[in-house]
Structure formats: C-alpha cells, structure tokens
C-alpha cells in the first residue's frame, strides 16, 4: 500500500534516467516514489549490453563523481572492460564495459531497494494532475491518484511506442512490453510540442549456433580499470571476449532484396533516426561503395548463450534478416532468439526545458532521458541524476544547480539539449565539448565531487578519497618540478626513447613534457613514497597536469574569456520579435529558447555573431 501522504518527488519510468533520478532524490532526503509499468524490468538495457565508450564513458565517470549509481552498477556487473583510445592523449581515453544484462538490472533494483526514502509502484502513469501551471501528481491506469510536489518523467521509448519489423507493426515500448498512452496527449493539451523519433536494435542470436572460429576475437584490457572512483567496486579479474565479423557484398545483396518491404524505405517510419547509429539497410543504402561492414558479436552476460549482433540493427522482415545474417561467415547456422526491430516513439523537443530540466510550461515537472530526444543509457542516466537533484532542491526551496559546459560533459549535454534542441536522437561525442582537455575521464572526481559534496550527494568516504588524491597529486608534481635531470643519469633513457639528449642539468618536469616520454619512464629517477607510487590516479593526474600544461592553460583561457558572456544575463521577458536587427531565424529561436545568458544565446542554432552583437548593443554593452 502506498504512503497516503503526498510524495516530494514522483519519478515515472525506471530505466537509466528514472533509476538515477529516484536514487538521487531519495538519497537527498526527498520522499520519493518510483512508478514503473513493470518492476521486473528496472534498469533494463534495451539495446546493447554495454556502458561507456568514447564520450559516454566520461559521462559515466561524471555521474559516479557526483554520487550517481551507474558507475557502481556497471563495475559490479561487467563481463569485459576496455579503455578505448589508449593510443591517444588522456583526454580521449574512454572507459567502456560489456555488461551482464540481467545482473545489471538486478543490481540496479537492489541498489534502489536499499534506499530508505524510496517507494515503488507497478502501474502505468496515464495522466498528470496540473493545477495553475504546476504539477501536483499523477493518475495511473488502475485509477489511482498519487500526489507529489514534483514529477520527473522518464518515459523512454514507451510513449505511443510502435515497433516495426518488415511490414508488421505493433504497439510497444520494447520487445514484449506494451506502449504507454495518455501522457503525450495530456502534455500536448498543456501546450507542449511533441515529435517522433526512431531508433533500432539488432537481432539476438543463440551463441551455440555460431562458429566462433570464423570471427576475430577482441579481448578486454589486460589490466582493466573501472568506472567508479569509490572503493566499493573492484576491477574485473576475469573477462569474456567479444568477437568481430564482417558482412559482404553478397550479404548486402540479400538485404537489398527486402528493401521494398522495409519500413525505413516504404514510408511507414516517419520518425528521425540517428545518423551515427544507422540500421544495416541504411548503411548499405547510403554508402553503397563500401563492400563490407564490421559487426561486433557481444555476449549478453556471464552465463547466457544469448549474443547481441552490434552493427546489424535492422527493421527488415524477419525472413530477410535470417537469410542475410546466415550469409555471414560464422553465422551459417545462426538461430534467432529475437529479430531486430525499429521503434518509433514520442519525444518532446527539449528547448521546452530550462537548464535544470524543469519544463517551462509546468512548474515542478521535469523531463529526463529519451523523452528529451536523446539516445544512450549514459545520456539518460546523466539527465535523470540532474533532474532528480533539481526536483529535490525545488521542492525543498534550495536554489537550482546547473553544470557548465566547462564543468562536465553532462553540462554540455544539457546545455545542448535545452539551447539547441535536437533533430535526431542526441548522442554525446567528444567533439561536442569545447573543453575536451579539461573534461577527462581521469579528473571527473576533481571536477565534480566537490559540487556533489555541496549538494549532499557525496558521502564522507568518497570525499576523503578525492581530497587525498588532490594532495598526493600536488606532492608528486612538486617532486617532479624539483627533481634535477642530470645528463649522466637520463641520457641513456632519452636515447632509447628516440628523443634528443640533454647537455646540461635540467628538471624532470621539463623532460616529461616531451611527447616521447611518460611518467613511468622517469619513476626510477624520482624519490616518491610507496603510497605515491601505489596511487595510480594521483600519478596520472600529476603527469597530465605537467605534460599538457600549455594546452590546458589555453583551454582555461577560453573558459575565462567566455565566462563574461556566460555571466551576462538576458532579461527573461525580452521581446525578441521586436528586434528587427536580428535575423528572422534568430528572433524565432531566441523567443522559443529564452536563453538566460548571452553565452547561451550565442549557442542557439541560427544565432550568428552579428545577432549576438545586436543583443549586446541592446543591452548597452
């Protein structure tokens, strides 16, 4: 039975966004209710069984640094860990884990069940109770009314979801689960604009039917790292490999035979799909000259035989899927557990939100996750975390908290969404960040844990660990700065690394700036304590701060320059339509987005530097 008192925060949906939102609000002390259509599918990985990757891995690290749970859940349930982009600089290093899909969901449920302030309800939210432009609760499909001071909607792909496989269409939010109805209609009634998006997923195959000898093997890292900064998780000691297969011209021909029955090409799918995650039919259609495409054969868990064919996302008829997949070496005998499918769902252009993810139309109503037009577990979880924190703060009269673009990928994500909106499912890329060198996976704790601590998300243990890292990194840096580099001692090393030798005494910190040298090369010459040498995170931080000092300073300078614009407020009631000097597009976009600062205005798409000059002129600057 539900608590009869109104809740502080009601979270609708228990995917990655909903779970983080509920966990954050409950942890901060809000009496929180998590409403989901199916309590058996909390924290489901609807698509690929993996967390992280380039830019996404950085986001998971940030969530963890702020006291979110995605990193811990991932660490506890991973079957493989890789640090991508190792050959590049540290800003590009990106952790990625292959997950055990079932254990991942189970771990999320256990984590949530451990929250004292959190209640659960299995039901479908079908209506929103709004009084004087303010949310006061929800109504469920069972006719129950639940009151809450704030509501976070994280409906994912469920709002009027339609699955497509070939010419077959069926309502559903995920394979085997029904769609959610009522919420879109209510929101449109309240004045929200809605749109349609599309995404897809590949077939799931019985691993026992595959000939792995025909695949390339891809192992995890030899010395795997992990996502969470906390010591509650440990790196993997054993791992499962992934495999790589390739399509061929023949496979493409077989797929093409089904194009006339493809919902992608015969017009039955209206929603916009992501350009970076196209279906296999889209790939061979758009890049006809490419004679093969890479597929990743990913295990779905430790013990299961089910595998995920990453790269073969498709909504072609099932018979075409089977025929084409079986033409791939290693897949000749493949048995399908489930065909691939495309899904269309409602989303709400995120320019209707403020930077806290609260809607502009209805007070105390927050949106997070795919409902905002994003894709990806990591993007969803990040929004859920920030929406949960801000919903709690709003209800308790604390001032809103927002991450800047120079603070975190999460800041880039939310600013992009609410400022520019998105035409296709939005995924994070490092190129979206202006300050890529500052937003690294190794320093997410230094960037964000102090904020998380201020907001009440960070416990004493995590806080103490971060402070220890700061102190130790500083002391390692000072050792490097002071340590002399003597020609007699280091020249042999320099020669062996193919960099020029030194004639006179220098400093170790100087040597470290050479691209050919790493801190590990210099350790034998440095007097560091055993504790220093054991603290790999502090060593890495010291190394990066010295090695990339020039470029880091350059980015910091940009941050400083732009902060002036970021701090110049724009009046909320500005009548953009009357600014004839602004381009028509800028007038419309600015009126829709209502940016809170000149900096945000400058990022609204269609707003040119000339438009920004006009705003500055009007502000009298």
């Amino acid at each position: 039975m539900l608590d009869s008192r109104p809740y502080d925060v009601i979270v609708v949906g228990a995917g990655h966004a909903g779970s983080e939102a509920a966990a954050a609000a409950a942890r901060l002390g809000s009496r929180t209710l998590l409403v989901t259509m199916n309590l058996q599918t909390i924290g489901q990985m609807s698509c690929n069984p993996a967390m992280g990757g380039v830019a996404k891995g950085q986001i998971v690290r940030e969530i963890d640094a702020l006291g979110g749970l995605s990193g811990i859940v991932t660490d506890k349930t991973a079957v493989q860990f890789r640090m991508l982009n190792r050959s590049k600089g540290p800003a590009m290093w990106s952790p990625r884990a292959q997950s055990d899909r079932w254990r991942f969901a189970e771990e999320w449920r256990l984590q949530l069940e451990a929250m004292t302030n959190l209640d659960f309800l299995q039901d479908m939210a079908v209506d929103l109770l709004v009084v004087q432009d303010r949310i006061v609760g929800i109504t469920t499909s069972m006719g129950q009314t639940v009151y809450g001071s704030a509501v976070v909607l994280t409906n994912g792909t469920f709002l009027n979801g339609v699955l497509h496989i070939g010419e077959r269409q069926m309502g559903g939010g995920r394979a085997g689960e029904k769609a959610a109805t009522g919420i879109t209609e209510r929101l449109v009634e309240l004045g929200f604009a809605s749109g349609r998006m599309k995404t897809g997923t590949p077939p799931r195959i019985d691993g026992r039917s595959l000939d792995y000898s025909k695949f390339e093997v891809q192992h995890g890292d030899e010395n795997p790292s992990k996502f969470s900064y906390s010591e509650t998780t440990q790196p993997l000691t054993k791992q499962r490999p992934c495999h790589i297969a390739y399509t061929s011209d023949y496979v493409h021909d077989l797929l093409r035979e089904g194009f006339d029955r493809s919902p992608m090409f015969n017009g039955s799918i209206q929603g916009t799909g992501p350009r970076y995650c196209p279906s296999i039919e889209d790939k061979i259609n758009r890049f006809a000259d490419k004679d093969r495409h890479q597929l990743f054969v990913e295990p779905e868990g430790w013990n299961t035989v089910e595998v995920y064919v990453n790269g073969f996302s498709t909504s072609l008829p099932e018979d075409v899927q089977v025929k084409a997949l079986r033409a791939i070496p290693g897949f000749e005998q493949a048995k399908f557990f489930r065909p691939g499918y495309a899904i269309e769902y409602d989303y709400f252009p995120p320019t209707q939100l403020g930077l806290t993810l609260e809607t502009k139309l209805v007070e105390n109503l927050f949106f997070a996750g795919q409902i905002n037009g994003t894709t990806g577990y990591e993007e969803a979880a990040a929004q859920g975390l920030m929406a949960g924190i801000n919903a709690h703060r709003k209800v308790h009269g604390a001032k809103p908290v927002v991450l800047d673009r120079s603070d975190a990928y999460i800041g880039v994500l939310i600013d992009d969404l609410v400022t520019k909106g998105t035409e296709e499912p939005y995924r994070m890329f490092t190129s979206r960040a202006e300050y890529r060198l500052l937003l690294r996976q190794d320093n997410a704790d230094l960037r964000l844990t102090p904020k998380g601590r201020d907001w009440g998300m960070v416990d004493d243990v995590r806080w103490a660990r971060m402070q220890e890292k700061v102190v130790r990194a500083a002391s390692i840096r000072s050792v490097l700065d002071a340590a002399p580099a003597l020609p007699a001692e280091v020249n042999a090393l320099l020669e062996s690394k193919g960099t020029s030798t030194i004639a006179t005494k220098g400093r170790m910190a100087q040597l470290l700036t050479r691209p050919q040298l790493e801190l590990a090369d210099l350790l034998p010459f440095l007097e560091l304590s055993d504790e220093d040498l054991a603290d790999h995170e502090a060593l890495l931080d010291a190394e990066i701060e010295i090695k990339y000092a020039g470029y880091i300073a350059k980015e910091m300078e940009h941050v400083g320059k732009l902060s002036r614009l970021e701090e110049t407020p724009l009046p909320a009631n500005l009548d953009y339509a009357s600014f004839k000097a602004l381009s028509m597009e800028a007038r419309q976009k600015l009126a829709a987005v209502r940016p809170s600062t000149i900096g945000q205005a400058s990022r609204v798409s269609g707003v040119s530097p000339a438009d920004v000059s006009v705003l500055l002129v009007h502000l009298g600057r």
Partner: protein
Amino acid sequence: MDYRHALGQTDDTIVAVATAVGQGALAVLRVSGPRSWEIVNACFCAAGSTPWLQRSPRTAVFGTFAAPDGSLLDEVLALGFLAPASFTGEDSAELSFHGSPYIARTALSSLIAAGARLAEPGEFTRRAFLNGKMDLSQAEAVADLIASESAAGHAVAFRQLKGSVSRRMDELRTELIDTTALLELELDFSEEDVEFASRDRLMALLTDLQTEVAQLLETFVLGQALKEGVPTALLGAPNAGKSTLLNALLREERALVSAVPGTTRDTVEERFTAGGILFRLVDTAGIRETDETVERLGIERSQEAARRAAVQVLVVDAVVWNADPLPTQNLWAQLEAWNPQGHRVLVFNKADQEQPVSPPEGALVLSAATGAGVSELEAALAQWVTQNPAYGADTVVSHARHAAALRAAADSLSQAENALRTGLSGELVAIDLRDALRHIGSITGQVVADDLLSSIFSRFCIGK
C-alpha cells in the same frame, strides 16, 4: 529594463546631408524614420496635381522646396521609400538639391524645423544594420564605400557590400571544417571501421589552408592600399627634381621648389589618382651624407618613408648620371637594402636638358618641368598595381577586423601544423584547428560541433 534606451532612440526621424561637404553639382539630403514622408511634406511641394503624400514610393517627384521662412529655396527631385524597402529599412526619402553649401544648410534647417533630428555619424548605417538590412561585414563595407576616394577603392568596397567577403570566408570555413572533421573522426570514432586520414594527408590539407589564408591576407595589404592610397615615395639625391615631379603629378604647385639643393627638409605627403588608382605620394628630402642637423633629420625621414612605401620612385638627374653612374647605382642598392619587398622605379628627370646615356632597362625618362613623359610614369605606376595578382581577386579583404581574424587564424594553423609535425595526439592538434575555426567564425558566424559532425556523417559510414 528598457534595453532600447541604450541604443538611443530609433523611433524618431533623422536627417543628414548625404553628399560630401563643398561644392558639387548636387547636394542630396536623406531623411529616415517613421515621419519621413510627413516631414518632407512640410517643406516640399510636388509639381502637378497629385500631392507628395499620394505619390508612389521609389518614384522621382519634381517640385519646389521651401526655406524655414517659407520662401522658395530650390527646385528639387524627391524620392520616397516605404519600410522595409529602403536602405535603412525604415520609411525614408532622398532629396536632390542643386549643389551649394548654402542650399544644403538651409534645407537641413527646414527639415529640422519640420521635426527631423540631425543624424549622428553613421546613424543611417546603424539603422540599416539594426533593421537587418545588412550583416556586420556589409555594414563595415558601407563605411568603406562612403570613405573610398578612388574608383579602385570603390570597387573593393562595392564587391564586399555584395557579400564576396562573406562568401569567400564561408568557403574557407567549410574547408576548415572538413579538415577538422577528418581529425575529429579518429577521435570520436576510433572504434569504427573507417579509414582515418594519414598525417601526411592532414599536413597537406593544412598547408593548403595556410596558403589560402595567406593569399587572403595579401589582398588585405592591397585592399588597404587601394582604400587609403598606395604608399609611394619619391626619393633621390638633392636637387634631382623630386618636388617638381610631385607638383607635375599633382598638377599644381604644392611643394616648395627651388634650385637650392636640399630645399625639401621635411616629407610632404599628397594624394593623386592615376588610372583610377589612388596613390599616397611622399616627397622626401634628398639623400646625401650631411652634417647639417636639420637635413640629417630629413634624411632619416626619407629612409623611413622608403621603408614604408610599397613603391619607391628614385628620381635621378640625367646630368649627374652621365657624369658618373656610380652614386646612382649605390643609391639604388641602398633602396633595395632598406625595403627588399618594395617595388622600385628608376626615373631620369630633366630630359629637356639632357638625355641619359645608356640608362638601365626599364628606366623612365621624363621632364618634370615640361611635363613630358609624366603620363608614362603614371601609367607605369597604375600598371604595377593592376598587375598584382591580388588586384583582380574577386575577394579583397579590406577591413582591419577581418584581417586581424585572418592573422589569428593563420597563427592557429601554423601551431596546428607544428603540433602535427611533433607527432602530438590528434585532440591537441584539434585545439589549434578549433581556434582557427573560431577566428574565421568571428567573421562568418559561429562554427558549432554540429557542423563538424555533419561533415563526418556525410562522408563516413558511422555506426556499429
């Protein structure tokens, strides 16, 4: 907050004399603002039976214009415009009077008495900009157009007004985006099965970009010269006739001329037009070793002028040359040492007295005193300018703000090249390339991450 206040009002009607002050055939007054037609109506009486307020916009209307006291001032042609189809985007009118400072002044008083306000400098252009009639670089071009003193300067400003700078910069931006995208590809999509650009390929693209930016910058040097006059120095030994030549070129007695060597102790600067091109001519003191303090100062100034000039005209007395060519040859070498990039022209003066014996190839022979051969010098100067490859360029960068942005972009590109050469990781090279994009973006409009991603997605098959 009344943000409009910061701008000064834009809802009143302004007036100004649009033609240059002084005597010309015509004086045009321009009125702009919501009350333009009404204010003109108070002073102007259209000929014929249809009154001014009922005339069609953009049609010339003949009539009479009254002074503030009501007396007839002049016969004028009036042209009315309705918002937004006007230069400023507001209701406006242009009135053509007979050229006379008195008429222009009095007409202005009439219009002000009728309710117009005297415009501040640049206010018409500012209104045009604020009403969305032109972008920043076009607004800058209008200012240049108004200031342009010669046909060539006018052409530069006009081309820019039509958006050629914006267009060329857009192309440059697209190339930069595509190059940066190649680098971003291997950063964000390292796991994808696509071919990444080799370092050699990136280096080649960077070199192309640098060349392009450098070429645009060269046009700035020329564009600057065309706008303000090609700096040209008249140099030579004392009494070679430099000042006489200056006067011949200007067709008036401007410089102090005397037969006493060293009369010109200061540099004199004048402008003249040859072949439609404006030159800024600097007459200098004669160059010779001297102990006289005043003259030595003058010589130092000559040296400075020679260094700054794009063109150095060395004026030589044919009599002196025939006596001994060596001092002239030394002076020629000296000029080259002072300014190796400059263009040097050798002119033998006083051809009415003596012809030079075996002059070097390309030397001109003239008489500044009689004017014989002076037009050949003018033609040679104009020809040198028009032969500059940047001269015919469709895009001439003529605004200092654009040149500064291009220079900053050039710096960033060379840092990117350096980083690439040192073997630094792609994301570091990308920092410099993004800087270059930012600088170009300050002219053309911002470059956003979406532009980079779009470039990637349109060219590479992404997505596992």
